[in-house]
Every structure is written in structure tokens, then in C-alpha cells.
């Protein structure tokens, strides 16, 4: 029996059955939707949603860095500025597109629910590891917690902004959407810290700066699931 034979059997079985919807059923469904049937404005095109998310991430990071002080930007050389901020921007663009895809049912997704945030974290870590070769751990905890708090504050602000942009979307997989959104929010925090923090020790940036992304992705996923359970569609 070859695939063509199986196709034939399936096609015949698929063509049979499939009872048509009864008038009663159609009336029942229409009765429930008619009270709220009115014209709706379709969602923005995916590219517009992605651009809005990217713009929000940049604005939040810049405002946060301005507020805390642009010490990191002043300390970085040209190569580091281009590599770090370029890398963050590129990963951020992927996260924006990934989050937008998760808000539209049946849209093409760039990567699986774990692969996108995990890949984003891995790429940022790799860029930082290639650029920053100092392994000092002076005042690791004290300085780290300062950065971690500042980065998380920025991530929370970006998370709220991302929520506003994607509010009208519908995530068929809220955990995946939350993880992508949380990673993007965390990345905004990483961007802010890159501009603000003058410490370029790899243990510090890998743990406390990138840690903002990891926590962001996790909290994003949990928040999205909790919101869906509290406010089911």
C-alpha cells in the first residue's frame, strides 16, 4: 500500500460524513453573537506592530539611561558601542517580530516558544562574551543588585508598553507570547544598562544585565498565563 492508496482512502473518508450545520445550530450561534455584532477595526499590519514595539523598547531604554546616567555609553569605545547596541537592536528586532506573530492566530512564527527567548539570551551572552574579557568580580553582589533593579524597572516599564501595543491581539499560546514579550522587555532593560552601566566585567554583565532578560522572559510567560486565566477570551 503506497501513499497514494492511503490518500485515496483518507480522501474518501474525509468526503463522507461531515454533517452539515443544522439551521438550529446556526441560529443558536448567531443568537449569541448578534448582540455584539458590529464593525471592528482589524489589527494593525504585523510590520506596524513590530515597529511600534521596537520604538517603545528604544524609548524606554533611552529614557531609563538618561535618568540613571549615560556612564556606560561614555566608557565604551566605538567598536563596543556598535557591537553591543547593534547586537541588542538586532535581537530586539527578532523579538518584536516574534511577539507580533504570537498575537495573531495562525501567523508564521519565527521560532518555538522556548527557542525564541532562549536564542535571544544566548546571542546577547555571546556578543558580550566576545567583547568583554575582564573577569573581575569586585563588589559583584552590591553593584550587581543595583544594575539588576534598574534593569528590571526598565523591563517592567517596557512590559507594560508592550502589553498596550499588543492588547488587541489574541495569543493562542499565552505562555509563548508572554515569554517573547518578556524577553523583549528584558532586552530593553539590557539596552538601558548598556548605556548606563560603566562596569564591563563579564561576570557582572552576564549575570546581572542578561539576568534581566531571563527574569523578564519567565515573568512574562507566567504573567501572560495568569492574565489569560483571570480574563479568558
Amino acid at each position, binding site marked *: *500500500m*503506497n*501513499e*497514494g*492508496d*492511503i*490518500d*485515496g*482512502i*483518507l*480522501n474518501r*473518508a*474525509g468526503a*463522507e*460524513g*461531515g*454533517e*452539515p*450545520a443544522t439551521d438550529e*445550530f*446556526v441560529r*443558536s*450561534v*448567531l443568537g*449569541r*453573537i*448578534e448582540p*455584539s*455584532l*458590529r*464593525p*471592528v*477595526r*482589524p*489589527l494593525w*499590519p*504585523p510590520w506596524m506592530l513590530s515597529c511600534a514595539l521596537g520604538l517603545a523598547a528604544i524609548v524606554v531604554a533611552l529614557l531609563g539611561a538618561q535618568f540613571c546616567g549615560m556612564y556606560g555609553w561614555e566608557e565604551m569605545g566605538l567598536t563596543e558601542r556598535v557591537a553591543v547596541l547593534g547586537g541588542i537592536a538586532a535581537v530586539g528586532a527578532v523579538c518584536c517580530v516574534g511577539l507580533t506573530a504570537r*498575537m*495573531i*492566530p*495562525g*501567523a*508564521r*512564527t519565527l521560532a*518555538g*516558544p522556548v527557542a525564541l527567548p532562549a536564542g535571544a539570551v544566548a546571542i546577547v551572552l555571546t556578543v558580550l562574551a566576545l567583547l568583554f574579557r575582564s573577569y573581575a568580580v569586585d563588589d559583584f553582589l552590591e553593584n550587581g543588585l543595583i544594575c539588576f533593579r534598574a534593569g528590571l524597572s526598565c523591563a517592567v516599564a517596557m512590559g507594560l508598553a508592550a502589553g498596550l501595543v499588543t492588547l*488587541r*491581539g*489574541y495569543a*493562542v*499560546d499565552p505562555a*509563548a507570547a508572554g515569554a517573547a514579550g518578556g524577553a523583549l522587555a528584558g532586552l530593553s532593560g539590557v539596552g538601558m544598562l548598556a548605556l548606563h552601566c560603566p562596569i564591563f566585567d563579564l561576570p557582572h554583565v552576564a549575570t546581572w544585565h542578561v539576568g534581566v532578560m531571563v527574569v523578564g522572559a519567565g515573568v512574562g510567560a507566567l504573567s501572560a498565563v495568569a492574565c489569560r486565566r483571570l480574563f*479568558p*477570551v
Partner: protein
Amino acid sequence: MVRYQRGDIEAAAALIRALSPQLRRFFLLETVSRREADDLVQDTWLRIHRVRHTYRGGEPLLPWLYAIARRVRVDHYRKYRRGAHRERTLDEASHARSGPQSGPERGWDLETILADLPAPQREVVQMLKVAGMSLEEVARATASSVGSVKQKAHRAYGKLREKLTVFGVSG
């Protein structure tokens, strides 16, 4: 669908008539009770109604529709606990999947043929064969890659070949 988004009730009715049969079969592959399947189809339409603004005109409708239907199914199983008992009415039990002696004589329905497949493979075959979706559309509906869909379909066909050969069903 675009007319439905504009508030056209006739368009909504036409969509419900056209797509409910395949949605019903989609749920029947997972549930035994026809009443449960009808409830799930109705829940799907209510959810489609609430999120109809997320459909973009010009894009294929079926991936969007099935992505929502899959979510309805997940929510249903989480609500009633995954793997909970399946209820059959006496009437449905009398039409239950039959053994090899009577299957080929009475004709095999899709649910019987696909019954032994794992859920992901069953779902892919249903979308490809009943809904007539392309590999790309199935990949979008299931949030997976075309390669993954092909792999599931290939494995499903392998299992179906064994089953249909054992039961002497010819193509």
C-alpha cells in the same frame, strides 16, 4: 470573513454553515461525544467572534481558524482535566469504532481510521485531508515548521499503512 468584520450577519451565517462541519470533525477526532463536539464548535465560533479583528484580510483563513480551534480544545481539556474519562451514550456506543470484521464492509469513517494515531499526527492528517490545507497552512495553524508537519504526516502514513494493511483495506 472581511464582510463579517464589517458587521455583516449574513456573512457570519455563511461562514458558520461552511466551516462548522470541518470544525466538528476536528473536535470529533479528540472527543467521543457528539454533543461535546457541538459545544466546542459553538465555543470556537464565540471565540472567533471575540477575536475577529485579529484576522487580516488577504491572509489564508483556515490557519487562523484552526489556530483558534486548537486553543479552544486545549482550554477545554484543561478545564475538564486532560485525559479525564470519556463518556459515551448508549447510542454512540452502538456506532462505536468497529472491529476488523465489520469495518471494511460498512466503510471506515475518518475518525475510525485515525483513531490509533497520536494526537499531533491525527490533527495534521485531519487538516491536510479534511480541511484541504497546504503544508504551509498546517504549519501556521499548529505554530510549527513545514518540516515538522511533513514528519508528522510521514509517520502517520506509516502507521496508517500498517493498520489498513492488517485490516485488508485497499486503496
